[in-house]
């Protein structure tokens, strides 16, 4: 059932209609096949790009959709309700455009951003390393000044769309206490990718490591100032966390919808299982979790759109929404009983997909750290 949304403008309503239409026709029919076979949906991101769904939160003058985060995130939620790995990849794409759009010089923005937003290209985000995840400041991948730019050496990990993306927001060490951000092309001599990780879920979009071995990036690929990298990374992550909160909410909504429709069909002891109070209460708690997840991310997004600080609210949204997704998808399996544990129904996949949402884009422990620091200030 379509979520009844409060949207700020008629154009936002048209956009959500378009999103549902595209998602129902292009995502739903093939999601199961690709997630089972662990195959990449070739051409799908081009379709989303052509419909204008890959550039929504960026300015119209560079080819973006000019939409507030409040609207962009609800689009992401609708995509996630059909296909979590695609929605996550869209969120990461937005994240990868953020450093250039926010910290790039006008020359850099005019040169690269229009192509990145045109819909033909997909971006990846490369901050994490095998030994530097939550502790991003510990990263060791090195960018060394050479005559014609920067030579990159080191290993990166957990890159969504790794090896498939056309460009990466790359973070590397430029000095003892200096981390810098680069806009790296997807293919360059000296850059190779590891074989895709064998994941619990999100099977259709690969996650890989990257190995930089003497690749040289021209000096104009540096985004912001040398040493500004961590500031850029963390400010991007505040927005990225909202993206994941929206993806988690969509996933939880899909699990709730599946559970409710099953609970109306299935009968035990002579009545529909939804009419047994024990199960009705379970479903009620699931609905409350989905609604509160949506409410927290929309609130944080509105703060961002209004130009107010939203870092703490983004962490609350990420924490609430992803914990809600874990709980709701687990309970959805419970509603389906033994059937829920089989791959005949989608809820076991939702449950597997929910787990990563509590981990990536800052683990939920890190979110609590951010919230607690906000309180202690």
């Amino acid at each position, binding site marked *: 059932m379509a979520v009844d949304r409060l949207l700020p403008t008629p*154009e936002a309503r*048209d*956009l959500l209609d*378009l999103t549902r*239409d*595209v998602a129902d026709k292009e995502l739903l029919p093939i999601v199961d096949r690709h997630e089972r076979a662990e195959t990449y949906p070739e051409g799908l991101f081009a*379709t989303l790009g*052509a*419909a*204008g*769904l890959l550039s*929504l939160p960026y300015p119209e003058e560079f080819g973006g*959709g000019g939409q507030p985060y409040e609207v962009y995130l609800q689009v992401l939620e609708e995509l996630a309700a059909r296909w979590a790995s695609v929605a996550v990849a869209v969120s990461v794409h937005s994240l990868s455009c953020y450093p250039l759009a926010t910290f790039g010089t006008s020359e850099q923005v005019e040169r690269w951003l229009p192509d990145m937003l045109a819909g033909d290209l997909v971006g990846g985000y490369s901050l994490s390393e095998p030994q530097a995840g939550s502790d991003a400041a510990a990263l060791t991948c090195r960018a060394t000044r050479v005559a014609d730019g920067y030579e990159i050496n080191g290993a990166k990990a957990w890159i969504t769309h790794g090896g498939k993306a056309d460009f990466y927001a790359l973070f590397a060490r430029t000095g003892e206490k200096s981390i810098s951000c680069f806009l790296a092309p997807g293919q360059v001599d000296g850059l190779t990718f590891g074989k895709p990780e064998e994941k619990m879920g999100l099977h259709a979009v690969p996650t890989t490591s990257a190995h930089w071995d003497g690749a040289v990036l021209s000096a104009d690929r540096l985004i912001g100032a040398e040493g500004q990298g961590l500031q850029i990374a963390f400010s991007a992550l505040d927005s990225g966390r909202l993206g994941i909160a929206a993806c988690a909410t969509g996933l939880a909504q899909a699990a709730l919808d599946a559970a409710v429709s099953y609970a109306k069909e299935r009968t035990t002891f002579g009545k529909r299982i939804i009419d047994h109070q024990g199960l009705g209460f379970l479903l009620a708690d699931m609905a409350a979790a989905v609604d509160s997840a949506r409410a927290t991310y929309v609130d944080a997004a509105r703060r961002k759109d209004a130009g107010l600080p939203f870092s703490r609210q983004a962490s609350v949204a990420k924490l609430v929404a992803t914990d809600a997704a874990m709980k709701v998808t687990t309970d959805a399996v419970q509603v389906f009983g033994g059937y829920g544990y089989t791959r005949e129904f989608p809820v076991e996949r939702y449950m597997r997909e929910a787990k990563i949402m509590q981990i990536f884009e800052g683990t939920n422990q890190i979110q609590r750290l951010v919230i607690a620091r906000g309180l202690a200030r």
Partner: protein
Amino acid sequence: MNIVVCVKQVPDTATERKLRSDDSTIDRSANGVINELCEYAVEDALKLKEAHGGEVTVLTMGPDQATDAIRKALAMGADKAVHLSDEALHGSDALSTSYALSQALKKIGFDVVILGSESTDARTGMLAAMLAERLGVPQLTLASKIEVDGSAISIHRQTDYGYDKVEATLPAVVSVVEKPDPFKPRYPSFKGIMAAKKKPIEKIGVADAEIDPAQIGLAAAWSVVSDFTAAPPRGKGVVVNDEGDGGTKAAEFLVSKKFI
């Protein structure tokens, strides 16, 4: 090239469709959507424009809410629209609809008119042929592919043995069928939806198109749909247990149904 594509708003096939109790016309109060084959017609029109230049005009005949179907076509990329809307047109059958549309088309002017080969509501599938007759131009029906070269136009029409290539000279009327990827109708882009709001929709009535009121509407209809019913669900088939005589029994069944 001046391309006119006729689109129709129909009740959503996903919802229950019914006739109005007062005059047995289709109940259009239900959720209206653009007829699916009309989306293919728009796509073909846009492809022709992309290849040969010119302008795509959307023409629809229908009540006020049919504007939604027009907006969809404009969002896909058509340039402008003409909406023929008049109380007097209510209840027009295929014959009088073809008359009304032909009058509008004479006013708009065209090199080629493209239509879906049928609508999901009335499903007569006759409109393209009737229009061509009314306009005195060639009809190229059930096209799976359209090619234009100067003033020559040709189409592919699928057959059991492959396809027929049908040729004519412009101006002409073409009706199109459903096609697989990559010929499926494009999605309107978000920017297309925004741009469509600013594209002109000219609303015209019966008098503007010089339509004779005596030839349209319920009173002038040559055909009346009094009722329709859903196809009955498929019954349980006949199971033949093969006890050595399965072939004979199967043959007897086919004989009883006059298949052999």
